[in-house]
């Protein structure tokens, strides 16, 4: 479990990122962390990984204070940053160096992922493209079998087939014991994968809900013309008229559109917060 209590974080007095943030992430979920540029998605992940320290409050991961960075904590957490470092070695050397630090690492699993991504462990990182490096690291991250897996923009730089391979692999490793947190801008890439959804903005959590809760309270549909403007939380032009988000007063069934949800949340922050009444 990841428990964030009253967490405040800033990059100096002029740049506050979070103020009294509260969040609880539980096992068995693939959390999607959304927010506009600079909302603090990466900073939140780095706080969870113990790479950044809160100015006040706490971030406890699997019962350990993240900022202590104890080996017992680190061996059960893997963080794949958006921009990463790869040493100038072959993939198999990389595995020889780093895998022994992770007790649950499976080489067999790793080789399967490499095969899926059409990579060989005999290749050197220096000879791979950015996307290929990322695929090798994604494979490594998943093979560590850590309880907590944090990924910052994992689909950035991946080609179209790799994105679907990524979704397939993540779905296969999302077990009941694991917490996966994926921060992304590319919601369309991961729409079918991430649930619950966390939206960050203005130093706080605007929404933290499962897609089931979202579709219970909100309705996503396409209409030819927008009527009853007061009931529409968000609308935008689409090929077939308007894509709109409204309150689901009549218990209609609809499929959550994460891009619309994101825009609706940012434009109607107080209404969305009231509707979902965040409780921790």
């Amino acid at each position, binding site marked *: 479990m990841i428990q964030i209590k009253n967490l405040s974080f800033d990059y100096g007095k002029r740049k506050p990122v979070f103020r009294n943030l509260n969040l609880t992430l539980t096992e068995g979920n693939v959390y999607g962390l959304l927010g506009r540029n600079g909302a603090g998605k990466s900073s939140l992940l*780095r706080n969870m*990984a*113990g*790479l*950044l*320290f809160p100015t006040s409050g706490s971030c406890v991961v699997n019962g350990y204070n993240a900022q202590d*960075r*104890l*080996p*017992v904590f*680190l*061996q059960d*957490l*893997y*963080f794949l*940053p958006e*921009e*990463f*470092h790869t*040493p*100038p*070695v072959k993939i198999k*050397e990389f595995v*020889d*160096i*780093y895998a*022994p*630090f*992770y007790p649950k690492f499976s080489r067999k699993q790793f080789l399967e992922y490499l095969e899926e991504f059409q990579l060989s462990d005999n290749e050197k990182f220096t000879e791979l493209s950015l996307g290929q490096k990322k695929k090798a690291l994604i494979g490594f991250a998943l093979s560590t079998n850590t309880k907590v897996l944090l990924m910052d923009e994992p689909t950035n730089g991946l080609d179209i087939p790799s994105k679907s391979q990524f979704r397939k692999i993540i779905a296969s490793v999302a077990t009941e014991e694991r917490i996966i947190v994926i921060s992304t801008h590319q919601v369309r890439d991961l729409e079918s994968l991430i649930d619950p959804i966390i939206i960050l903005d203005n130093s706080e959590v605007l929404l933290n809900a499962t897609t089931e809760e979202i579709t219970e309270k909100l309705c996503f549909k396409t209409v030819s013309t927008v009527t009853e403007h007061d009931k529409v939380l968000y609308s935008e032009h689409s090929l077939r008229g308007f894509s709109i988000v409204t309150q689901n007063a009549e218990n209609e069934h609809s499929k959550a559109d994460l891009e619309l949800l994101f825009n609706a949340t940012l434009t109607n922050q107080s209404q969305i917060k009231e509707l979902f009444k965040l409780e921790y």
Partner: protein
Amino acid sequence: MNNTFDFNRFSLLVKRQWIENKKLFLMASVILLGLGIVFYSFNMSFITGKLINGDARMVILTSSFFVVGTFFTNYILKDFSNKNSGTNFLLIPASHLEKLLNVAFYTFIIFPIVYWLLSYTIDFAFVSIGNNIMSNYDNVNGLPLVEKNEFWLNASSKKDTWSKSLIFGIWLIVQSPFVLGSIIFEGWAYIKTGFAGIIIFFLIYLIAGIAFEILVTDMAHQVEVNSSSYLQIKPTRDSLENMTILCLKYVFTPILLLITYFKLKEKQV
């Protein structure tokens, strides 16, 4: 599970450092060897076989030991010069103590061993070559024409002032700020540490000078207890100097390494 020190994790860190850097380490050793050969070649007469004297060789090799050492220390901690590699380093499941000891192992143990091994090898080779050339002139009137070259190691071991432990002690004092600087400063760590080191050195020098003036005793500050004895209430210059040397030898490096440990624990990327 021991979260402070585990030998297995420490050895994995040492292995990681080696695998990731072995090519560069080997290349650097070859370059060092090449520079040594060039230096000795320019300082030896291939006609008489005479090398520059042992003291001069020692001064140059020791100076280069200090300079190359600071470069090496900075390189070993290069992970902190960049956010991505810093992230990778800090997230390795090992304790901060193990990570620092890994750095110390390469900086304070492996580097000096390799450096002096290379230096002695070159010295041995050139002294042997030089003496071999000289042996051609040995038989003129039964006396050697030129005094034979002495191995640097033999020349230095005869002199107290060139005590190896003193050189190593001073070297540790010079290196440890570079370990700390590489963690504190994100970019241009080497240059920033150098500047900071020079400023701090001059400040200490100034403060020490003033402190000595104030603290050091002279006859006027001695209190007469009775007509036949004096009570000295201030330390003498000698005792203060000894205390300073003692601190530099045994306190400075451990304190800086302790600060480095806490800075590493507090490091955020």
